[in-house]
């Protein structure tokens, strides 16, 4: 046993320093030099003020904005200091009630729109910070946003198209619309 202790302790200390201090330090150095914006969180800066991150979604409830995925973070939705999904099971009555409430809220904000509501627009994302919605979920809201903002629906749809990404390299992921960037672009229309 005694012959084991010295190698155990010294090897543990050595590998801890290498993998726990040196390695993260080197990666930080390289990342900050080569990809400074990404390493610091891909912030969106407007008039010198950070207004969000390209990767993190924000909460939207006003009819003039496109709404994102429901968020289950607490205490407030889209709490980027405490990411979380809802973790409700498929048979949990709380899930059905929540989805029902969201469908009703969408319909109340847009009377007359009787199309079925795209599933991603009424189900909570895994992180609670999902920055995207599906093109269908954007299309569902386009008429409402155009009406509230008194813009041409065609123009709104053009903006949606401009902020829609396809599958990465044609294969990976799903087509999606960046909600925050789209809403920022909408606000700029009025200036």
């Amino acid at each position, binding site marked *: 046993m005694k012959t084991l202790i010295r190698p155990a302790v010294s090897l543990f200390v050595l590998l801890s320093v290498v993998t726990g201090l040196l*390695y993260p330090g080197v990666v930080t150095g390289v990342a900050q030099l080569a990809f400074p914006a990404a390493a610091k969180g891909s912030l969106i800066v407007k008039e010198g003020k950070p207004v969000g991150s390209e990767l993190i979604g924000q909460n939207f409830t006003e009819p003039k904005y496109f709404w994102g995925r429901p968020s289950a973070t607490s205490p407030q939705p889209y709490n980027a200091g405490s990411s*979380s*999904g809802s973790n409700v099971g*498929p*048979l949990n009555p709380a899930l059905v009630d929540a989805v029902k409430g969201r469908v009703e809220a969408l319909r109340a904000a847009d009377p007359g729109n009787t199309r079925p509501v795209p*599933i991603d627009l009424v189900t*909570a994302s895994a*992180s609670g910070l*999902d920055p995207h919605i599906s093109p269908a979920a954007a299309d569902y809201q386009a008429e409402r946003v155009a009406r509230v903002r008194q813009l041409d629906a065609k123009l709104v749809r053009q903006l949606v198209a401009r902020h829609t990404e396809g599958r990465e390299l044609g294969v*990976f992921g799903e087509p999606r619309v960046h909600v925050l960037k789209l809403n920022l672009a909408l606000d700029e229309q009025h200036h």
Partner: protein
Amino acid sequence: MTNHAWLLLGLYMAVLLLLVKPLGIYIAHAMEGRLGFAVRIEAAVCRLCGIQRDEDMDWLKYAMAVVLFNALGLFAAYALQRLQLWLPLNPQAMANVSPDSAFNTAVSFVTNTNWQGYGGESTMGYLTQMLGLTVQNFLSAATGIVVTIALIRGFARHSAAGIGNAWLDLFRATTWILLPLSLIFAVFLASQGVIQNFDAYQDVTTLEVTKYDNPKLDAAGQPLKDEKGNAVTEPATTPTQTLAMGPVASQLAIKMLGTNGGGFFNANSAHPYENPTPLTNFFQMLSIFLIPGALCIAFGRIVGDARQGWTLFAAMTLLFVVFAVGAMSWEQQGNPLLAKVGAGDTAISTTALIDGNMEGKETRFGIAESALFATITTAASCGAVNSMHDSFTPLGGMVPLINIQLGEVVFGGVGSGLYGMLVFAVMAVFIAGLMIGRTPEYLGKKIQAHEMKMTSIAILVTPLLVLLGTAIAVMSEAGRAGIANPAAHGFSEILYALSSAANNNGSAFAGLSANTPFYNGLLAVAMWFGRFGVIVPVLAMAGSLAAKKRIPVSAGTLPTHGPLFVALLIGVVLLVGLLNYVPALALGPMVEHLTLWPAR
């Protein structure tokens, strides 16, 4: 299953297949000390650390070294959490973690489980994440590699007293295999948007002011409840959003490559800072199977018969593909209850792309990449998640659960997957030997009473921990208090937690409130014995195998390569798994499935 999902699965397996052979050969070289550039560095490290370079340890000394080394890790990871408030690199002034949670987390990261009862961005300072958790991500993965290499040496050597030098093996696995791969992967991840900094959390002014209900706290800081037990809230607003920061890319790289799975953030690889794009998602999925797959090839190399390695790889691949297809199909089917309340949309042409069960999934990954990730992370003992398994459909969620319960041998953890599968291979030749009336042998080594005893312990220790632990939890008040979802799903949450802990996976049906003294204690016991209750018998078997003579191949030898053995091996893995777990599964996901569909 959609065409896109098939394409994705095919592409994934093709790229994996391309990568495992070169990496497997490199691993064999590195672990056998045949890297030219490494010799002088290793000599220097041996001098510095008092390691006798040419020492060949017997199995007992090897096992003691491994356990002692991991015990040191346990102590360090615990101490860092308990003292973090007074240590540097804690810009958010995260409080010292409670004793039970710190103990659970330390055991969790040392055993390569990386079960997380805490939320990363609201609990851990940067120094704890790096020097406590990142270090254990490396060292627990290295432990898996050295144990599997020791077992392989047991087959490869003959009439030998030792199975290798544990210190040198641990150093080689960490420095020559895990570190270079992690460096490359971390820089790639950072280039794609994964953050890497030591900054304080960043406040941004959001477009809209967020209105929400804030829970009221009493004087002790506990949430106030009304007489019905509901939380008392008051309306609140905030014009800002606080973005959690940290050295994520470096930890994320080894979290995936080491099949650790413990997220920097609470939402793990669903968090946009931890998995920003579909491309990072694809590479994260690849990195989970990369080393476990390559180790199969390294195995074939070291025992001098490449076909043996490919045979195990083929058995793992077949099991994996079946499970992946199942999970992707069931998640695509969606939740019939939601269609009833007006959600879900198959009618609009532009949408056909997103459909199915989207609760707890991210838009950029959709159904296919979420279900595929879930299958990979549980087939391997990774446990990272990019979607919330708790919200999966009953059968979609049963796939991860079964994957874990099969003992994490479908690629499995780094090292632990291969030594687990080799234990099943020994079991398979034993059963085959009984059927044809011959003394079982594997790779020229006679399988006798001692090997079968060790095999039995290694195979039975985890089901025992899972089923007993689940029974204790469902029978106790403290265990039932953690349940989040009603009815059968609540039982599944507990069964999943114990399965995940004892098999060192680390993913969860995360609705379960597991950060309580009861679960922190119970799960820590399951994790520790699920890890070292397998490692010690495996090393004991390695020792006795190494001492045996090699029997030459004869006409009566049962070949352990080729389709017949693949089928036999799969049969044994499934048989043992199903015999252990079907009754428990029937009470959870199966009953839930039968409730959900008629409810339509």
